[in-house]
């Protein structure tokens, strides 16, 4: 990993963006610094990619549970 100073670690904007895509339920600009509309696009793409990968690798599992895997 490329070395960062402690202040840069604390404010690593890449990690902040990843965290808000993967975890936060409802990002708001004054909390995460990112617009919810943009974050929603990345979340939907992440889920769509995961569904596609599952349908290719485990088609039977995908068929069985696809009704539960709704796009956010």
């Amino acid at each position, binding site marked *: *990993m*490329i070395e960062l100073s402690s202040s840069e670690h604390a404010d690593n*904007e*890449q990690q902040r963006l*990843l965290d808000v895509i993967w975890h936060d339920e409802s990002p708001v600009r004054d909390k995460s610094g990112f617009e919810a*509309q943009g974050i929603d696009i990345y979340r939907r793409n*992440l889920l769509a990619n995961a569904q596609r990968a599952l349908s290719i690798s485990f088609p039977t599992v995908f068929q069985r549970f696809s009704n539960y895997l709704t796009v956010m």
Partner: protein
Amino acid sequence: MLAKNSDVMVGVGLRHPHFADILTQSKQVDFVEVHSENFFGQGGAALSMLTQVRDKYPVSLHSTSMGLGSVQNIPMSYLERLKKLTQHIDPFLMSEHACFTWGQQQGQLIHSGDLLPIAHTQHNLTVMCEQIDRVQSFLGRQLIIENVSAYVQFAESYLSEAEFLAQLCRRTGAKILLDINNIAVNSLNFEGGNIQQSVSDYIDELPVDSVAQIHVAGCSAPLPGELVIDDHACPVSDNVWLGYEQALTRFGAIPTLIEWDNELPEWSVLVNEANKARDIAHAVSARKNT
């Protein structure tokens, strides 16, 4: 008619449904571009088909998962597979995006599954230069770096993306892959949507000798109030063609690719889009020579 030596090379993004078309029909484009990661498997039908295509066309390897802007180092397992493919295909161009893809969740290295934008700062410029130096040294090849479409912006950015890329090239010897549609998407989403002005501002910041490839693509119209999503699912828009003309006027006869990834049309539609690009290039060239 295909490119002569003095003309622009025009290619198309080659996806699996068109393998039979390109191998059985007469030569209608100058090169093809494929996504590197789709051919990382050991052997198999896909690599065999690409090897046959390589015997007929120059191939550009376009990577989408490297994440050159990541603070996390790119895993060696990824680079080793890319190197093996490079040695097998001997591409005439190799490209990636100015984005990050690698990060951590719960202490584990994860891939984001997307081309995530980076803040355009001197710190991130240094990070990305180090990554590019490492990859270019490992592969023994020059990389071409593409501007990305983004759906969020960083308050930390204080350089324009064009200035960031220009400095990146000066420091690493890499070149720029100028995606006109990505400039258009960002213009519509964040800059008020004057695409011609956005393209003009962008290309004016780039050194004339810095661009090695151009991408053009189309995307679906958004619902009212929604952001434009760069889905590569439509013909190239008139605004992007105008931006392409602006770019050729500034940078000259740069190899150009038609990108179409979703809602794939017939092969002939892609060939027609390539012919449109060629017509514009001829017109720009003729205007320059008068």
